[in-house]
């Protein structure tokens, strides 16, 4: 019996110790699990944040590529930053003719895009060495670096993010915050990444505008090409039609231009065309339209001008062209031009019909001996010649 009791006591003691041991192990394991869980929670949070940022970045990239208007891109940039980089005021500046000018619609708490804030702080299109990382100015109210940006009176921190195009700075983005430590390195990195996307969009927009401008111009003379002329002439024609205003068209052709090319070569011929285009351009009023119609042919549309006024206008140009002195290998020469003028009549339904009549008048001017201005006249009714009495 005693043996049995002793055995049970021994077993009980061992069980007690084993339980203690197990409790310790379990406690240790659960502590480990707790820390591991916290670690996982942090990782999940970070992952979630990273995914959100990546999503917004992707969306912003898509949004930027679909836009070609500078102000729209600037507004888009601001709205994306509003979601991803907490701040109180923002402004986008782009270089225009060497100075930074604000762009993008002012929205809510944004810095106003008024002309007063146009300034050229340490940035210049090619002078300053831009840093790839944003500049964070913590004490915005007192730091002289922050002053040129016209800091809001309640802002504590300012961040300057550069907008780069390959090899140069195209502008910058200014973010302001009322909080002292608002812009963390992560926020700065993110702002730069978004700004880089916007920079590409800005650059594309500028290129697009340039292409658009170039596609409207004649490559040699820099005046409108025929395509652009047709567009502009139509606008003026419709306006004249609507308000019952006079409108004239002039067709102009250089006389014996083939001879100039044959005698002096095409490069001299080109110089003549450039000089003539220049004379024409200088004669224009703001609303007048000039274009190279093709070869040595030029055309004008003069709003609110009747045939008489257009004739006087053409005559001035004719005299100016006649007065141009050219030189080719020591041989002086000059050129002349013929003009056909016509004004809008009630039957016209497009600028084409006026131009057609001007062309007929031009033909007449050529036939009449060149270097002259002829106004179109309706053809006289043909009277059949009576047989002469013998």
């Amino acid at each position, binding site marked *: 019996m005693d*043996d049995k009791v002793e*055995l049970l006591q*021994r*077993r009980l003691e*061992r069980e007690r*110790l*084993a*339980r203690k*041991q*197990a409790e310790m*192990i*379990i406690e240790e*394991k659960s502590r480990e699990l707790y820390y591991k869980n916290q670690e996982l929670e942090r990782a999940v949070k970070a992952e979630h944040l990273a995914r959100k940022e990546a999503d917004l970045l992707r969306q912003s990239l898509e949004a930027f590529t679909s836009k070609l208007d500078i102000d729209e891109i600037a507004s888009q940039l601001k709205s994306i930053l509003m979601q991803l980089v907490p701040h109180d005021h923002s402004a986008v500046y782009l270089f225009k003719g060497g100075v930074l000018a604000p762009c993008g619609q002012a929205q809510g708490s944004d810095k106003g895009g008024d002309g007063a804030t146009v300034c050229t702080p340490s940035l210049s299109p090619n002078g300053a060495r831009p840093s790839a990382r944003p500049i964070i100015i913590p004490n915005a109210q007192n730091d002289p670096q922050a002053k040129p940006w016209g800091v809001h009176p309640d802002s504590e921190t300012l961040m300057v993010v550069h907008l780069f195009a390959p090899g140069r700075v195209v502008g910058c983005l200014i973010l302001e915050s009322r909080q002292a430590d608002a812009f963390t390195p992560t926020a700065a990195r993110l702002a730069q990444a978004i700004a880089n996307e916007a920079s590409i969009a800005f650059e594309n927009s500028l290129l697009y505008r340039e292409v658009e401008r170039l596609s409207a111009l004649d490559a040699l003379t820099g005046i409108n090409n025929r395509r652009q002329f047709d567009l502009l002439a139509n606008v003026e024609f419709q306006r004249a039609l609507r308000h019952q205003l006079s409108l004239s068209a002039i067709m102009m052709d250089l006389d014996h231009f083939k001879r100039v090319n044959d005698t002096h070569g095409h490069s001299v011929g080109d110089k003549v065309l450039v000089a003539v285009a220049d004379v024409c351009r200088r004669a224009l009023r703001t609303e007048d339209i000039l274009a190279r119609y093709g070869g040595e042919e030029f055309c004008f549309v003069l709003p609110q001008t009747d045939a008489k006024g257009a004739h006087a206008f053409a005559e001035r140009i004719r005299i100016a062209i006649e007065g141009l002195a050219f030189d080719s290998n020591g041989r002086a020469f000059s050129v002349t031009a013929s003009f056909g003028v016509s004004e809008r009549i009630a039957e016209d339904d497009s600028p084409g019909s006026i131009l057609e009549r001007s062309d007929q008048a031009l033909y007449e001017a050529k036939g009449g001996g060149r270097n002259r201005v002829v106004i179109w006249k309706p053809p006289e009714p043909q009277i059949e010649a009576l047989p002469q009495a013998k």
Partner: protein
Amino acid sequence: MKGMVFTEFMELVDEKLSPETTERLLEMSDLPSGGIYTSVGNYDPQEMVTLVTNLSGMTGTSVPDLLKTFGRHLFKRFLASFPEFFEGINSSLEFLPHVDGYVHVEVRKLYPDAELPTFTCEVPEPGSMTMTYESKRHLAPLAEGLILACIDHYGESLEVRSETIASDPPTTKFFITPKQT
């Protein structure tokens, strides 16, 4: 070695022999752990060798036979604790190939520090199987006990023959074939 193996061993001795035998075994083994085992701890595998060897001396049953019995006992515990491993499986020849590829993978997830043996299964002809067991622990008879219990679980008429085919690392090949009648 996982504490569960030790606690199960104690339980087996309690059950098959008597609690007194367990106490005597622990007393005579004079183990570093004092025989205080919990299923959640880890203990020196040498203690298991000491316990089995001493039990063999006490009972006159050979060590391999003891291990085989222990293997059978462990299979029942295994079945009760991890029924998910047996889901959708209808025979031992279907289950055994799963041990290395699936069961051990899962076990390692639960116990990253577990030292597991490897099993390689081959089917020489339908209805038979060879299983090559490799372990530093010299516990081939325990594996055989597990295999036998598995066959019993599915109520099959199979027999197991074992052959040592290498000593370093210790490797045993089990031939599982239909029972000769």
